[in-house]
């Protein structure tokens, strides 16, 4: 990234943090002036501990459905505390939850300040909605929650939760697009997916608050169990998913480590595909599918004899056939893994051409147009192959790779994907491949040096896989 861009981002961060932080302080000050602090301080403290715990340990679930049960805690607390101090009680709670220790440890200042402002405002507005629904004149309206109709509590807290969702989403969207640009916002652009479960959580939270009002302190252990079990269940689910992904990543990394030429290939291709996906406006679930497809796309190659992968001269037809079978190896290996099936379809078609030529996976015939995802994977895979050193040639330059992709756009590659890739790459400012045009002699020397560095690194890390030497007769082909 250029220096100017970094400075621009820095300035945007300062402006945003200052604005949101000031807003948060103003809201808190106004609430302190308007409302008394909850008279049952212990009750407020209990809910605060639960809320802060959930905020600090928010669970990452890819579809963002149940990111954290904290909205439930907020609304239970709002109902249990009572309307006269609900807004102040909940806003202070949210303010405390905004400061996450990980941010402090990593000396991030922007995130906590912006979060503080954003969460205080969001919490105050959403609790305000709940109080307003309860106070609205009409049947069942009352000054205190105890006398209020349960209908009002249920509807009010569901509404409050959706207000929370919308306001938070708008603020985050605004902040992210101000700092990082429009591109990063795209995976976030599916508010429908988060709003419905949030409303459900809020509805439930309000009713749990009502149980406290009707049965008293004996409800608190039960409420705690509801929070805890809900959190535990999603946390263990999220951890298992993470284990699953990191296992396949680790495995592939280890297997690639044996081979200098493919080392890091999968990780880079996964990064490129994700970038293209974002550029083309994919949502979270689609991006995840793309990432998994990239992670497994070369698993089959691990079962192909090394000599073939490293061969310097042109492959015979027979060898070429063996090489291509890695597409089927991946199908055979992973056929038992149910959730990978859609990704295998993508991965096994990454050698298929846009115009229907090339090598297709099982179930596809010559002439079939590969899916958009398979086209993305093909472009990412080819770009990495061109810009990294192979057994038969050294790395080529990035402009050369662009030219090559464009030359085959429309036949081998999907032109839309190629342009999305190049645009995304230029925006990111990253550079891959050789920096300069080299003669073959120079290129080989540089490659030898790189190989030596990797050997030293392997020794330090205790890996003892032998590495093959760089091919002596390099030809640019």
């Amino acid at each position: 990234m250029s220096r100017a861009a970094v400075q621009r981002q820095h300035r945007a961060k300062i402006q945003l943090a200052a604005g949101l932080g000031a807003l948060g302080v103003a809201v808190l000050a106004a609430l302190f002036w308007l409302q008394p602090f909850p008279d049952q301080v212990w009750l407020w403290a209990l809910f605060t501990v639960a809320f802060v715990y959930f905020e600090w340990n928010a669970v990452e679930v890819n579809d963002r459905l149940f990111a954290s049960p904290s909205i439930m805690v907020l609304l239970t607390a709002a109902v249990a505390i009572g309307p006269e101090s609900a807004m102040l009680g909940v806003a202070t709670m949210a303010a405390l939850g905004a400061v996450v220790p990980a941010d402090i440890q990593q000396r991030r200042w922007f995130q906590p300040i912006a979060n503080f402002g954003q969460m205080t405002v969001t919490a105050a507005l959403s609790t305000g909605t709940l109080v307003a629904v309860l106070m609205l004149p009409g049947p069942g309206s009352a000054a205190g929650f105890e006398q209020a109709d349960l209908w009002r509590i249920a509807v009010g807290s569901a509404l409050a939760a959706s207000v929370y969702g919308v306001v938070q989403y708008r603020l985050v969207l605004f902040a992210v697009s101000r700092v990082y640009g429009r591109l990063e916002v795209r995976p976030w652009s599916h508010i429908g997916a988060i709003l419905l479960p949030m409303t459900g959580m809020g509805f439930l939270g309000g009713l749990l608050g009502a149980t406290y009002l009707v049965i008293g302190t004996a409800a608190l252990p039960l409420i705690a169990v509801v929070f805890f079990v809900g959190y535990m269940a999603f946390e263990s689910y999220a951890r298992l998913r993470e284990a699953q992904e990191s296992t396949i990543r680790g495995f592939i990394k280890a297997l690639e480590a044996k081979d200098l030429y493919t080392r890091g290939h999968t990780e880079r291709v996964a990064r490129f595909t994700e970038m293209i996906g974002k550029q083309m406006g994919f949502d979270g679930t689609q991006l995840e599918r793309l990432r998994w497809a990239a992670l497994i796309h070369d698993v089959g190659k691990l079962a192909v004899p090394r000599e073939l992968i490293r061969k310097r001269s042109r492959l015979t037809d027979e060898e070429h056939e063996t090489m291509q079978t890695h597409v089927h190896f991946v199908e055979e290996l992973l056929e038992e893994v149910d959730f990978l099936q859609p990704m295998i379809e993508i991965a096994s078609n990454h050698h298929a051409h846009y115009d229907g030529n090339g090598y297709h996976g099982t179930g596809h015939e010559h002439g079939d147009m590969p899916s958009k995802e398979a086209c993305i994977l093909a472009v990412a895979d080819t770009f990495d192959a061109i810009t990294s050193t192979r057994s038969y040639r050294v790395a080529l330059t990035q402009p050369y790779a662009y030219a090559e992709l464009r030359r085959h756009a429309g036949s081998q590659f999907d032109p839309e994907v190629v342009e999305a890739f190049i645009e995304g790459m230029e925006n990111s400012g990253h550079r891959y491949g050789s920096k300069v045009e080299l003669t073959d002699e120079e290129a080989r020397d540089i490659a030898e040096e790189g190989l030596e560095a990797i050997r030293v690194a392997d020794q330090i890390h205790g890996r003892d896989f032998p590495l093959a030497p760089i091919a002596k007769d390099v030809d640019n082909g």
Partner: protein
Amino acid sequence: MAESRLHRLSLIVLGAITVLGAAAVVFVVRSGEVWSATLFWAIAIAGMHYLSVPTPSGKHINLAIGPAVAAAILLPSTLAVMAAYSVGLVGGWAVLRWRSNTDRDADSDYVAESISMVAFGVVASSGLTGLSGSSLPLAWEQLLSVIVGGSVWFVLRALVSAWVGTERDDLASRYLWLLALEDWTVALAIFTGGALFGMTWPLMGIWAFPVAILPYAFSHLAFVRYDSTRITYGQMIRALAQIPEVADLAPRGHSTRTADLAVSMAREIGLHPNEVTELEYAALMHDVGRITLTEPAILKAGYTDEDIARWGAQIIAEAPYLQEVSEYVRVQHSPFRRPGEALDPDVPMISKIIKVASAYDQAVHEMHLSPLEGLERIHRGSAYDFDPEVSASLRRVLAQRGVIAA
């Protein structure tokens, strides 16, 4: 053999419950107590036998205990509670028979669930009677009775299902007991739903339904997802472990068979369920180091079994969640004891089991020995190469499978 005994046992339990239930029903009707509420809860308990939640241990808990908890709070006397439970359990037996794939699963579930449910009912409702008139608020009396009854339920259920499981599958009761204890989160969720309903129904009316059901529904969703992810994680490890076999670098099927045998032995020995899972992964991947044999340089230089174990461990160690598994793979060839030396306490049981299972599978499937000859080989190697305790377990597992005479 064990199966028919189990079936007889489930019929005895059912008979006892029917007798108990008939007596309680007669009493409830004669004393003019609320028979309609009793009938409602009986139907709820019977119907909820149809639904079950997957638990972290890979088993299921059926939901019948949820309405049972609510009934214990809401029905006015211990007798009415017993009447509702027994009628519900008789109906539940029919429901389980109808939905279950195999009769023996239905039988064993039924025995454990019904004995513990009746125990819960007795403890919780007599607790409520005993506490009434104390200075505690009513809600706390209800909560305390449910907590005490629930603890009894949980321990009894684990004990009975461990015992029943030993009958059914010849597994170590320690293993099954630990397995049943793993289910506490799910049990807690179901109990909380029941207790919330029982405590709020008189005060909140129909709003008690969402209060009781939604928390449970949210966690159910998570448990189901957890369960399916647990299964696909296993599938993925299985797939990755097959890379050497697909590449013709290792004999086909060896790792799967070894894992299968090793898991049976571990359960028979009574390892902790989490350890059994790690053992399964380690056994599946014990030969993954062979993938390195595509490397011409290695083929030229030569290699030993220890090298393959070490390379395999290095590959597995790249996955942050499989550190332990990688260690088991690394030491899989360590002998049980070297001649003239004391026992090596550092060789984990898991590695010793894999060593035996792999050696036996090699003897039978690669050297084409008969199962008895294979076992003979292992026994000859006991005391130095193989742990005698593990060899003995192999013999018992093979006998259970009917491969050799018992």
